[in-house]
């Protein structure tokens, strides 16, 4: 899977405008009403580890003028570094250190990004909620009714405001 085009597609579907950086198919700019940033992909974990800062600084240098237009929006600037490579002996804390570094931009650094799902997971901080679900009120009464085989009157009394004594009397009358 080609990560950058897939990312581009995902971002566009999520409401972002995107643009490839001039002469660099591996650098994708994105922006919406509130935030902006770029995504770049590295072949290996070590490459990512070695080059992320260079890419980051280059982006800031190149776009400093634009970012100065809206310092507030510039606060919401994301640098996203992805690699399909899995770490071998690469220490995890190196990735954490990249993300913990809040200087200039918010950084997202992920390894093992191989699938559409992996890209979405990596982009979660800037993505809309993905797994929306609408819990509907459960059909509790029907299920109970189906299983206990009581008369409607008894069940209605039980589910209504009848007292336990009244329900007990109705249960006594059940065949």
């Amino acid at each position, binding site marked *: 899977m080609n990560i950058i085009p897939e990312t581009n597609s995902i971002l566009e579907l999520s409401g972002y405008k995107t643009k490839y950086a001039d002469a660099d198919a591996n650098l994708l700019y994105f*922006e919406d009403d509130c935030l*902006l940033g770029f995504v770049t992909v590295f072949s290996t974990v070590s490459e990512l580890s070695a080059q992320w800062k260079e890419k980051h600084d280059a982006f800031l240098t190149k776009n400093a003028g634009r970012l100065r237009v809206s310092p507030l929006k510039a606060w919401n600037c994301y640098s996203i570094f992805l690699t399909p490579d899995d770490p071998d002996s690469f220490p995890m804390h190196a990735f954490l250190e990249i993300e913990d570094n809040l200087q200039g931009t918010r950084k997202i650094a992920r390894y093992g990004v191989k699938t559409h799902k992996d890209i979405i997971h990596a982009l*979660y901080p800037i993505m809309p*909620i993905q797994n929306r679900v*609408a819990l509907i009120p459960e059909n509790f009464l029907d299920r*109970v009714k189906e299983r206990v085989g009581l008369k409607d009157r008894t069940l209605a009394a*039980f589910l209504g405001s009848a007292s336990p004594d009244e329900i007990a009397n109705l249960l*006594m009358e059940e065949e």
Partner: protein
Amino acid sequence: MKISFIEMVGFRGAKNKIKLDFPSGFVVICGRNGSGKSTLCDAIEYALRGKIEKTYGSETEKGETISDYLWWRGEEKALDHYVTLGLIDDNGKELIIKRGPEGLISPKHEELEAALCLVDSSPDDCIDHLCRGSIIRDEMITNLSVDMPEAERFKFVKTAVTTSNFEMLEEKARKVVDIFNERASLAKKYYEETRNRVSELMAERSKMRAEAQQIEDTVKAEQVLQSLVNKPLADVATLINEAKSLSVELRQQVSGLAHVLESMRGLDKSRAKIETEAFKTQVKEMETQIKELEALLSEIAERNRELNDQLAVQGKLQPKLLSLSELAASGKHIGLDQGACPLCGLQISESDYFRHIEELERVVEAENKAMAMLIEERALISTRMNDLQNEISKKKVNFEHLSATSNFILKQYENIKEELRNYDVSLEADTSFDTAAIENEIILRRQKIADIDKNLAILEVSKAIEKIIAIDRDLEIAQKKSLEYEKNIERVEKAVSRAGILYSTIRRVSGEIVDEQLAALSPLFSELYFRLRPHIDWPEINYHIRGDVRRFLSLRVGDNLNLRFMFSSGQRRATGLAFLLAVNLSLGWGKLKSLILDDPVQHIDDYRALHLAEVLSSIRLLKNQVICTVEDAALADLLCRRLRSAEGDEGLLINTGYSVGEGVKIISERKIYPTPKEVLLSA
């Protein structure tokens, strides 16, 4: 529906009127502890549902609940008390909810439900459920995440993800089961009691039958008793009662006659004494002596009267005798006056003169002597009279005593005769005491008593037959009852089974529903957990439910590791928040697109704060309104930057404070304007 404004006066910590217009994007409320951030959330909750439930349950302390502190309680009175909440839908249609201490002022509850929920597919008490899902408080996050036992967590989650009041139904079903258990034990108790009664009656009947076999002739006994009672009587029971009364009466008579007999024997001895010749002679002699003494006394009294008469005559002579005595003494002293008597002047010789004087003295002396003798005699007679009178008195006392003894005995005799008449025993008037007759009477009556008792016993035995009939009747009733109770036990046991099935079905179905709802919610929960990233090593989370009767919910990471024992309290809080946000985002039937977070995070680092801001930003991408209170100003700034202010969907930062005596106040309001649409991608 989103919140468009909140207005309150005299509510919770706000004495004075506060009105805040909310933009449809987000509102970040920042302030120190006690500055009224929660009061604003309370006002929203109160306006929506008419109560505040900071935790799931109604906490009471010394009989007070939070409802006692809904309205301003400061020293200075508030000018008014109400909360007004504005809601606006996507079409700009506004609904204003107003509540005061008296309750919901407007609109009607049904209108409110229709505005906030899809009524056809929403649960009962939908506004309560909606509020629980939409207003996430620090206490709720704490409850869900920090040190909550697994069973409690399950209960909490069940309430959060389900809309039916399972707890209430389970409780109701459990009470029904309890009622049946009680009825079953009561039915068994009644059955056992009835069976015991049957056994008792059976034993009694056997005993009565044995007694009844001893009957020889109850008819004859009845006739005997009839003759003894000597009254026409309607039934045997009355005859028995009368006979018993007669028996008692006869026993009293026998006792009385025995007493009379004893008295009579005593009197016999006394009577024998007064009827002796010696006694009679003694009485007669005493009577004669009294008469003789009285005659003698009469004679002496006559002599006494004579003496008194004589002494009276002598008494009259005394002055003359005194004069004569004085004359004799004077004549003697004077002597002859020239040969003549000095008194009469007659010439008299001296010898004759003195002789006459001596004669005169003799006469005087003789008279005085006679007087003295009379006095002496009278004194003697007087003494004798006294003696006689005393003697007569004594004799009379003795005589009267003897007479009285005789009379007393006679009186006693009369009394006894009277008493005997009372016992229906008569004695001839001239018959002396006949103790043998009395003895005979006693023997006769004792015989009667014996007859009564004997025949009563026979009739009592015949009563045993009546008893047997009554016992048979009771036995039949008891056996019928026993059968009824047995059937009742069967019915109750069947009902117990039905109630048990109902109870277990409810528990099972509620468990299934919780399982299903949790399963449905799980991907969203996992996503939010992943986004909040409480623990860098464990980006994924699973839940685990166990138990049947009592259910437990634990949250697991990695290789089935319980995060309760793995995570710090801050990490657990983030997990809890992920769950509550998942619940909020899954309320399919709710129309309220406002998420209210009251102090959701505390003491977190910038990196974690950023995760929260990003999650809330993602929620904002759903066009939901986010209202969030925070204590930390930097976090408030971060949220204002990240929560996506857009044109027509702006944000607002509110700073709150507190004035002594005045309560909550709004220090500042700052609109958060949208940023330029294109900065990086502009041409």
